[in-house]
């Protein structure tokens, strides 16, 4: 991706630890390879790429040598806490641990990553406790200067810069390309008496717009691709049912969070390969976990049987959705749709999503330096608002087993089912909100 990447000796030492090598077994985009066959790249090479990009940014910003080193190390280790199938594990951890917390304000997977950095024995051979703390300060935003954190996690950070290009190349698309050299060439910092922030000179506005568009197109065309959403939802359902219903020991050990070393070891023993090989092995035959993974392995995927923009639902349903779809409503909807389609409810999945926007990555926080002070990117970009609006649109979909029938009769049946499903969704949402049918 970036040509030759150079690592310092201490960086190689970190790469050679078992906990870093584990990242070779965690795919960046889970089972997106079922859509884009080349998307088999892993968190391992992504972490190396982020290190390289972060190092470039730190040099461009003329940070002190020690700060450059610290930023590179933080970048190298930033994804250590990822679980099997990357972001799907994050969701699984949050769903399966609603009564637990990480003990801090961090999401569980981030707390796991931080625990690895501060307490893994192999990492500890190359990183002193004090230095581990400094790395965590950069990752959590409590470092001496904000600029170091913004290099790793911010609206135009090294993480995004790498994964947009990498995912785009691996998937064989052009959507995620942008002029990274121009972006870095216009990178600067704004200083006041006590802190330093990342900014871009006005000449970088077009490169930033290209970057924002790359993110939008990758979100809408790749990350939110219908089949990718379906495979992600199926993996999540398999992990959830495997843990809660099938009560599979190694899944419970890995996904029912506990803030101790034993849990950490169980968690680290899981990567994509282990999950898939366990699912296909003899131990769990007949479980939902095995059955769903069999479907994935044979590409017998669920279909999108219903989809709607949330704002196309009735006002009464919108009222309930402001508080989010409650778990009981979700279960009720899935049961009713299963009845309509004549299938098992475990294979029916309700999914609420937007194409992809979060405050952590909002471009509204990017600063453009006008020679005097920082100004919001939105004041200098004409496309920003349009893209932001598209990213925020919310959708409600249902995935279920269905044989496709493209005949006229089949299409009529699908249309009438669509209306029935919509009606059932609205009924269940209102019922569980207290609105009543």
């Amino acid at each position, binding site marked *: 991706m970036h040509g030759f990447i150079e690592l310092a000796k201490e960086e190689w030492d970190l790469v050679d630890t078992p906990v870093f090598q584990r990242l070779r077994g965690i795919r960046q985009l889970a089972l997106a390879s079922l859509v884009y066959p080349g998307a088999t790249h892993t968190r391992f090479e992504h972490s190396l790429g982020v290190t390289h990009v972060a190092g470039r940014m730190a040099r461009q910003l003329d940070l002190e040598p020690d700060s450059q080193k610290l930023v590179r190390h933080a970048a190298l280790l930033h994804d250590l806490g990822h679980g099997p199938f990357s972001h799907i594990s994050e969701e699984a951890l949050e769903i399966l641990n609603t009564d637990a917390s990480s003990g801090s304000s961090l999401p569980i997977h981030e707390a796991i990553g931080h625990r690895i950095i501060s307490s893994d024995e192999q990492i500890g051979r190359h990183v002193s406790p004090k230095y581990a703390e400094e790395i965590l300060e950069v990752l959590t935003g409590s470092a001496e200067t904000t600029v170091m954190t913004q290099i790793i996690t911010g609206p135009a950070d090294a993480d995004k810069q790498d994964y947009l290009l990498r995912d785009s190349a691996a998937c064989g698309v052009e959507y995620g390309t942008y002029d990274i050299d121009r972006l870095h060439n216009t990178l600067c910092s704004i200083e006041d008496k*006590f802190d330093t922030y990342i900014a871009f000179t006005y000449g970088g506005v077009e490169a930033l717009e290209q970057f924002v568009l790359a993110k939008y197109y990758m979100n809408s065309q790749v990350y939110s691709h219908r089949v990718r959403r379906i495979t992600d939802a199926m993996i999540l359902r398999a992990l959830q049912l495997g843990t809660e219903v099938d009560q599979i020991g190694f899944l419970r050990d890995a996904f029912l969070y506990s803030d101790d070393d034993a849990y950490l070891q169980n968690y680290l023993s899981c990567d994509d390969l282990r999950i898939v090989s366990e699912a296909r092995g003899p131990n769990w035959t007949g479980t939902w976990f095995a059955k769903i993974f069999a479907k994935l392995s044979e590409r017998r995927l669920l279909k999108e049987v219903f989809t709607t923009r949330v*704002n196309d639902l009735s006002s009464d349903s919108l009222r309930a959705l402001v508080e*989010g779809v409650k778990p009981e409503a979700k279960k009720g909807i899935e049961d009713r749709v299963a009845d309509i389609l004549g299938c098992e409810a475990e294979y029916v999945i309700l999914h609420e999503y937007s194409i992809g*926007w979060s405050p952590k990555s909002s471009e509204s926080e990017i600063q453009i330096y006008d020679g005097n002070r920082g100004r919001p990117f939105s004041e*200098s970009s004409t496309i920003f608002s349009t893209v932001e609006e598209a990213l*925020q649109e*919310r959708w409600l979909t249902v995935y279920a087993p269905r044989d496709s029938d493209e005949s006229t009769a089949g299409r009529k049946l699908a249309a009438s089912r669509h209306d029935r499903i919509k009606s059932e969704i609205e009924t269940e949402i209102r019922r569980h909100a207290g609105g009543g049918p």
Partner: protein
Amino acid sequence: MTLRTTLLLMLAAWGSDMRGKTFLQKNAYFMSKLLGEDLGFRPHYYGPYSPKLEMALGELRGMGIVSESVSTFGVVDSAGFQRKRYDYSLTADGRHVANAIQGDLKVESEAIDMAVKKIKRAGGDMGYWSLAVAAKTHFVISASGSSLSEQDVVDRAEGFGWDVDEKQVCEATEFLGRLELIARD
């Protein structure tokens, strides 16, 4: 009650357009202080800012409950920066949803209503810049946990990267006093 619901009820209580992101964020900040709720505000270049509130606003827009309209004021400087303001109001669906929620969550809704009325009476309809100064002033005083002079506030605000002067702080403390968020000696 989710942040989306809180924000929706605030917009309903406000009644008219909330003019500008800063205006919305800072009034939400004061409302959160009056209600004793943590809405995720943290120091930011433009004063206390809540990314979670921004996200909730985006989600309500994505649901078609809140509308955003953009006003531009032409090129304002030689660097070519165009000043824009984003105004927010409830859509027809949004007003319907807010009415329904107000019926279901009477206690919470009335608390938000009272907080918004108090902010408006105290002068919360002032310009966004004065609101931002007031929010910064309150943030600095709260963070210190002790009595501060106007000069102290100016000095400590600098630590957050905020550039305010004594006159602005004086006006801000009058507003904060009317809100009963601080006691003036």
